[in-house]
């Protein structure tokens, strides 16, 4: 059997008497960019802290190359962490912060200076060596924290929302920069974010979490195109989620109409969630598509327009590069393969 680099086996975590993580099973391969994605409070940081050695799971095991490392203290694990709150050393300047790990490994002064300099260049903070870290902006501190971890070229790097404090432009730049570095240095990244766009654009694999449970693990394409349940569908990109009934294989009823679809294997008349992406709905003139409705609201979103179309008590969200006039009556058309049917969560 092939050994995974890191493996979480049936990990549970309780704080006081609340279960924060339920049966987490996760494999991380060498050189993989794995993202834990989920809303705030779903247990992403806790999962990362278990891998880093700062929390012990209540039950379950953590394997590194097939061997349990639960007993290893953090300083003996071959992982480095970029902490969510930066956690820089306030008694040291930028240089000493970044050099900390190298100095502990007794690397020679010249090499340390070279590496720190190269790292600072990478995070766009050249010449900041002597600066007091307490007077840097949040974004600068965050980049120092990234540099401090990355300079050690660890086998695994854990990153807890490392770009959270950056403005949009810098965030996009750093996303590309981090991805490049990950590929160039061959470091395994375990990346935590609540930003689905960031997760989709950077990851090899995404694990979507909610309430301490992994909802779905897969490639960004899988997760986006084939969300396993309505939570994933809703969290990854925007979605229209409607109650429906599966009449028989390949036929579903929702919004008062019958639709052809590509799903099967449900019980007859089983209640389901129907998920349709806003960009998968076509707006046509009245009475041509199956559903008629009135355009209530139009917003320009940069590349596309977002139209809210009211059909009785349901409000459809539609993205299109073509604008419809607010107040006009239109019809909506959905192709069978763009209708995603999901079992209701019990």
């Amino acid at each position, binding site marked *: 059997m092939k050994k995974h680099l890191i493996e979480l086996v049936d990990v549970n975590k309780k704080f006081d008497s609340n279960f924060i993580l339920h049966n987490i099973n996760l494999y991380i391969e060498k050189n993989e960019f794995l993202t834990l994605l989920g809303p705030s409070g779903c247990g992403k940081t806790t999962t990362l802290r278990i891998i880093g050695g700062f929390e012990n799971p209540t039950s379950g095991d953590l394997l590194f190359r097939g061997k349990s490392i639960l007993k290893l203290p953090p300083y003996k694990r071959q992982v480095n962490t970029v902490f969510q709150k930066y956690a820089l050393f306030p008694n040291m300047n930028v240089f000493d912060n970044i050099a900390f790990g190298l100095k502990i490994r007794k690397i020679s002064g010249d090499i340390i200076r070279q590496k720190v300099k190269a790292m600072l260049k990478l995070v766009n903070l050249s010449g900041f060596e002597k600066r007091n870290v307490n007077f840097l902006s949040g974004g600068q501190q965050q980049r120092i924290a990234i540099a401090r971890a990355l300079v*050690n070229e660890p086998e695994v790097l854990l990153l807890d929302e490392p770009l959270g404090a950056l403005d949009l432009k810098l965030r996009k730049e750093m996303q590309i920069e981090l991805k490049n570095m990950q590929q160039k240095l061959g470091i395994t990244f375990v990346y935590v974010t609540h930003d689905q766009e960031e997760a989709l654009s950077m990851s090899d694999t995404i694990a979507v979490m909610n309430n301490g449970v992994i909802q779905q693990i897969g490639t960004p394409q899988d997760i986006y195109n084939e969300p396993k349940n309505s939570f994933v569908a809703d969290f990854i990109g925007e979605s229209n989620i409607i109650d429906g009934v599966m009449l028989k294989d390949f036929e579903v009823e929702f919004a008062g109409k019958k639709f052809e679809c590509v799903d099967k294997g449900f019980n007859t008349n089983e209640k389901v969630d129907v998920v349709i992406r806003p960009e998968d709905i076509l707006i046509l003139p009245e009475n041509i598509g199956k559903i008629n409705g009135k355009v209530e609201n139009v917003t320009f979103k940069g590349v596309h327009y977002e139209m809210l179309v009211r059909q009785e008590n349901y409000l459809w969200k539609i993205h299109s590069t073509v604008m419809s006039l607010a107040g006009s009556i239109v019809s909506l058309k959905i192709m069978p393969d763009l209708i995603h049917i999901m079992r209701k969560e019990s």
Partner: protein
Amino acid sequence: MKKVFLYSYILWMIIFIVIPIILVGYFAFTQSENGVVFFTLENFRRVFEFVYIKVLLRSINLALICTLICFLIGYPVAYIMADKNFHFSSTLLFLFLVPMWMNMLLRTYAWLTILEKNGIINSCLALLGFSKINLLYTNQTIVLGMVYNFLPFMILPIHTSLKKINYSAIEAAQDLGADSFTTFRKIIFPLSLPAVCSGITMVFMPAVTTFIVPNLLGGGKFMLIGNLIEQQFLRIADWHFGCAVSLILMAVIFFAAIIFSFVDTDDEGGNLF
């Protein structure tokens, strides 16, 4: 409104700090004979006579020993109390603070009843069949009394600063490969250093000036600079010489404080300078 407070503060400073210091200076640099007051440096020359210098040096010596012991006891205590897994830290802190609510004279008297010839310790020894030992009126007793009285001044600032350390910085150090000792040496201790300096200053100052402790526990046998000053004012009534000694003592404390304020870069107050 702010100005009113500012001015009343300045007024307070003038009445209770500046004027007394001017008076001390006035007395220190003068002598009076038959009601005639004249300028002189004679008082200062007398301070530098051997007997008095010996007293000054002994005071500094005992105060330094006291400060060192306070640090050696106080730092570990503060460290243990700041540990987030230590559940009795508030109880312990309370126990250290309670004696401070009591008058220092009383606190020190309490030690007399413990240490004196027929005191608690000797009674216990006698009960166990040992011969009585002399515990009072030694340098060690004085240092004991000082440490007892001033230890909280060392513990409190260090405890506060250790509590304030962001725990994630400690985790970050461990994450980067530092074991507990390295983490302490490179992160925890440097971050508490300003508080250590405050503690040292706050223990050293009262220790070097105290006269209650040597009076009671030293039995007046070991004169320290505090006793010397007290004597000049209350017994001999030589205010001129008393003021000169006070000024010299102030200079000593001033220099000690300056030395520590160099190390002390914490700008959040709680320090002398």
